């Protein structure tokens, strides 16, 4: 039973160990540029495969956007918790309903707070 997972563990440790060795070697052997001298390319979003845009081309996004995005992420994902309730709501009956209402009220409190603090106003 246990032996079955031994290779997994070794793979895990091997991966970490390899990484540690490479990082350590890099640290020991590699050149150590100062933060300021690090090539700018290191900060470019190369993952998406598109060449980086010119700096002045980038449109500035209002910080309000982030705030709304953050609020959205939170309220949106809390809804995940509704799924199991939806599956079982017949069995849970009134008790389940009350529980859900309490849960939603706490979300509403958050909403009220955000609203009163002005997080929802675009201006």
């Amino acid at each position, binding site marked *: 039973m246990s032996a079955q997972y031994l290779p997994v563990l070794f793979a895990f440790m091997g991966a970490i160990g390899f990484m*540690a060795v490479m990082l350590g070697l890099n640290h020991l052997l590699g050149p150590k540029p100062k933060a300021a001298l690090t090539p700018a390319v290191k900060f470019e979003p190369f993952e998406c495969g598109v060449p980086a845009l010119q700096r002045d081309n980038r449109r500035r996004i209002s910080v309000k956007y982030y705030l709304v995005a953050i609020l959205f992420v939170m309220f949106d994902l809390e809804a995940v918790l509704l799924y199991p309730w939806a599956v079982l709501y017949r069995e849970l009956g009134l008790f389940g309903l009350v529980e859900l209402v309490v849960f939603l009220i706490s979300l509403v409190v958050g909403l009220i707070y955000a609203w009163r603090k002005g997080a929802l106003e675009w201006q």
Partner: protein
Amino acid sequence: MQPLLAQTAQAIAASAGQAVAHGAGGGHGAAEGPIVAVAPTVEATSLLAVVILLPLLGAALNGFLGKRLGTQGVNLVGCGTVALSALLSWKLVLDLVQLSGPGHAAGGNFGLHQNLFPWIHVGSFQADFALWLDPLAAVMLLVVTNVGFLIHLYSIGYMKGDPGYARFFAYLNLFLFSMLCLVLGDNLLVLFLGWEGVGLCSYLLIGFWFEDRANARAGKKAFVTNRVGDFGFALGMMMLFAVFGTLEPQAINQALAVPQGSLPATVPLWTLEAAALLLFVGACGKSAQIPLYIWLPDAMAGPTPVSALIHAATMVTAGVYMVARLNGVFFHAEFACYVVIVVGASTALLAATIGLVQNDIKKVLAYSTVSQLGFMFVAMGAGAWAVGVFHLMTHAFFKACLFLGSGSVILAMHHEQDMRFYGGLKRFMPTTHWTFLFATLAIAGIFPFAGFFSKDEILWNAIASQRGGTLIYAVVLLAAFCTAFYMFRILWMTFWGEHRGVPEGHGHDHGAESADDDHHHHAHGDPQESPWTMTVPLMVLGVLSLVGGFLGVPAVLGGHFGFPNLLHDWLHPVFQYSTVALDPTMAHNHAMEYGLMALSLGVAGLSIFLTWLLWGGGKDALRDIFAEKSPWLHDLLWNKWYVDELYESVLLKPLVFVSREVLWRIVDEVIIDGLVNGVASFCKQAADKMGRAQDGDVGNYATIMVAGMVVLLLVIVGFGVGT
């Protein structure tokens, strides 16, 4: 509580299946058949707590409200609480005397006991906050409260006008509280509380004039050195607990009240030896013995009353007291006692030789204290507990008197401590002179002053005890010779001869002390006698230096006249099962005892005669011969045997640098407190090394976490493979 202890003790004793013999009379007891060690007689009291708490109250009042109380208020609170405490202690000791009367103590130890509150009860471990006053504690109690009171009184004059007046008295009172905890604690934990407390107060008071960096550094040095000792003490305490299951000295002594060599099986001898050695490390720290004595001379940076109270009369004797308290342990730990006696004798001689050439009056007295503590440890190592306690007491009288006298002189000389600028002060300050002379005669061991009796008994025990020997005796006698020499040197240089005075342009480089000059009540000019608050304590202590010795007149002298050895009789119940017998060939050799007595008197006389030759006969040239003929010896003594430098190079440098710098540093006299700096810089370097990882980079932090995780994973995988 107490009966329970007795049961524990007897259970331990009985577990070996051995009868406990009466140990008091050496070999005689055994012949009389098995006698069970008599359990202590205990009587409850509720006054002990008051004795202790009064100084604490004073400390709190002066500490927190000092500014508002005004000088008079501070005086009243500071001295008043201590005076009350001293009066109460007399009453308690009288109660104790009552208790010793017929019909009460059936031959065993006896004492007053007060349990304040249950303190720690964890599993098998029981420790109450309890106080215990037996004859031994009574001697210390009286010395501490009464000498303490005199020094408080003296401080009124000495500290007059100091900006930290209230703070000074608060510290002093706090010290007294801690010291009383140490003396009266019924278990080692309370004793340890006092032990740490006096250390803290000592640190605070040495650095009292902290504006001067040197003073603060001296405080730190004392603190660090004492921590080394405390560590040993704590370990020793744990060992005792592991063996006996209790921390109460009464119970431990009771359990050990068996003849030497017939320990119960539950108490292996090596544990006692180890515990005794560890405890002695603690005693070395507190009582300034080789190798931990280096802090005491530097501790003279504190105000002079502090030197008198803490660094001469009371705190530094705590180590001696602790050994006496645990006499049962040291009684059986023979090897540890050899260490004690050797260390004590060497310290006595080493410190006395250093004292020969110092010019700072307080430095001489400081080395003298170290040396006298060495004498006490010689007595302890010889197993003559009562003798050591006797010298502790007389030393408290005459050394306090000497320090206070030197303080009086220092004040009159506007904080000049160099004796080369003194001379002829007898004319200006007669009271100080006469009391100082009395105390000097006492410490030099001149009949019939106090020191004669106590020192002579130590010398006798050094040669006649089973744990002593001729070599030890010779060393101690030489130390006694030096003692008389350096003390009379002080007298000649300070009080007798011509007044030299401080030359113009000689800067007061004593830091904060000189800053206080304008506060003093007398103008510059001829030195003046000190006010009555200072001279009265001097006179009292001077008289005590004269008559204090009659409490312990040895049998050979007093026996013929029916004069009992009061102190020995008083302490007999405490030490009866553990006093080491004298060598049988010596024990009754009265002729030898008289002879040795005469020898020591003669040595002291010779020494005094020498000082007269050098300083009194007007032959100044003679003095320089010593320095010229053997400059190496003079340098050696002047530089205190280079011990500070030795520690610096042997103990510290290898920790920091392992390099050829070691040799260079030996001659480097600039760094005197390498101990403190060395430890500190070692820690700093280690921390810097560790701190390099702490570079503020989140990525690196995560990497270190993962590295730690991988290492730990590998560790458990390694274990997994192993098992």
